[in-house]
């Protein structure tokens, strides 16, 4: 993008983009860490993830304040305005992903403390689903930096898979619970973790819609995949 007449304005926008990227990186780390703790029953790592969520929250507040400042001081228009508004929403989604990571870590701790390992196959499956969403997050953060709306559309598609995956996992766990009622508590914990991961996927989809908004100026929320693809083809 070419520069503004005001270098100050440019540096303020760059600063916001840099912080969003940093927040994204932090959240991705949190997510992967929580998944790893879940997979390896790492109590210490879970505790760390829960503590580090504070940093994510602080970043959200700081970025939102910076956005408010830019609107008050610079009266941004067109792509600059869309970016500031979309950043505000993206940051909320990122913070929620961070919260989901925290929830996953908390649930992991409960499972470890309770002691019944079990559900090994499902754990692997859920872990796999988690890796999917972590990679979606990585992909959408990349797309945000490059304003790559094609990659954003791809992320929206992947979320559909994550949703299907989630439903399959739940069916399996229900079957498992029916076979052996002693496993209900841990199975439920795993279902909650799976739900958190599914929500992470949804948040990534929201961020993808924000990227499309910045890049194309089209609000593609609530349109469904077909509607979204249609909107994207309009120049």
């Amino acid at each position, binding site marked *: 993008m070419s520069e503004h007449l*005001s270098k100050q304005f440019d540096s303020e926008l760059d600063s916001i983009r840099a912080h969003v990227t940093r927040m994204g990186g932090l959240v991705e780390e949190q997510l992967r860490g929580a998944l790893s703790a879940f997979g390896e029953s790492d109590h210490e790592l879970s505790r760390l993830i829960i503590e580090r969520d504070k940093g994510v929250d602080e970043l959200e507040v*700081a*970025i939102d304040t910076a956005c408010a400042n830019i609107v*008050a*001081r610079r*009266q941004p228009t067109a792509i600059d305005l869309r970016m500031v508004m979309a950043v505000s929403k993206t940051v909320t989604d990122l913070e929620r992903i961070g919260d989901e990571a925290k929830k996953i870590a908390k649930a992991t701790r409960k499972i470890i403390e309770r002691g019944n390992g079990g559900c090994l196959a499902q754990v692997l499956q859920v872990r796999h689903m988690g890796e999917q969403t972590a990679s979606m997050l990585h992909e959408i953060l990349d797309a945000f930096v490059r304003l790559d709306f094609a990659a954003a559309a791809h992320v929206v598609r992947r979320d559909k898979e994550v949703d299907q995956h989630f439903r399959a996992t739940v069916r399996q766990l229900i079957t498992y619970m029916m076979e052996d009622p002693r496993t209900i508590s841990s199975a439920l914990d795993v279902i909650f973790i799976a739900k958190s991961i599914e929500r992470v996927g949804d948040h990534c989809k929201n961020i993808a819609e924000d990227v499309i908004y910045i890049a194309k100026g089209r609000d593609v929320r609530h349109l469904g995949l077909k509607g979204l693809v249609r909107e994207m083809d309009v120049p």
Partner: protein
Amino acid sequence: MDPSRGAISELPIKAEVRNFNFHYGEFHALKDVTMPLCERKVTALIGPSGCGKSTLLRSFNRMHDLYAGNRYGGEIILHPDQTNLLDPRVDPIEVRMRLSMVFQKPNPFPKSIYENVIYGQRVRGVTKRSVLDDKAEEALRAAALWGEVKHRLHDMAFALSGGQQQRLCIARALATDPEVLLFDEPTSALDPIVTASIEELIHQLKEKVTILIVTHNMQQAARVSDFTAYMYLGELIEFGYTEEIFIKPRDKRTEDYITGRFG
């Protein structure tokens, strides 16, 4: 990102207005104004027409002394030497040698570009050609005009465009190495692109000199200043960091003005 903004009272101050009152004849134009001017920062004065912002600005360099019937009350203290600029024992000429002003409508003298820039040095009695040449180049560079005029320094100033003329006036004001630069609605006569380039220039200038700017364009105050003072009917209603004034002003009157809920 946003450095934690300290309390204003802990920042280095270049000047202080203390209980300043001003009368145009019988009319009480400025009432008990007290505010700081932070060093090497841009402070903006905003407010509706007739609120007294230009009157306050022009008191800093004693321009009101040129016309009969005006009366100053209170003090404007300049740091670090604690001189009261309004003291009748202080020569207005001395004040004007320490504070420079840029006016609303560009007012270059009908002389050459070179003569315009070094005028301030000439009235101080500097005659050595090399000194004047250096000063001229320094000032024109600081005003981002050197590249455009270095080959035609002896052309008449009127040959320049409006934006260039205003930069020339800025260079002229800078050539006297002022401690404070006073801007009286400097871009109201200029188009938006030129305005943006002058705002960018002000941003660069504040690294070296304290700036006080009067503007009737609120958005300009938001873009350009670190501190903003809102004035109404001769009173200072609110003073604070620009972000605070424009995001969460403390006084409802300030908010009404800024949001356009005026009148």
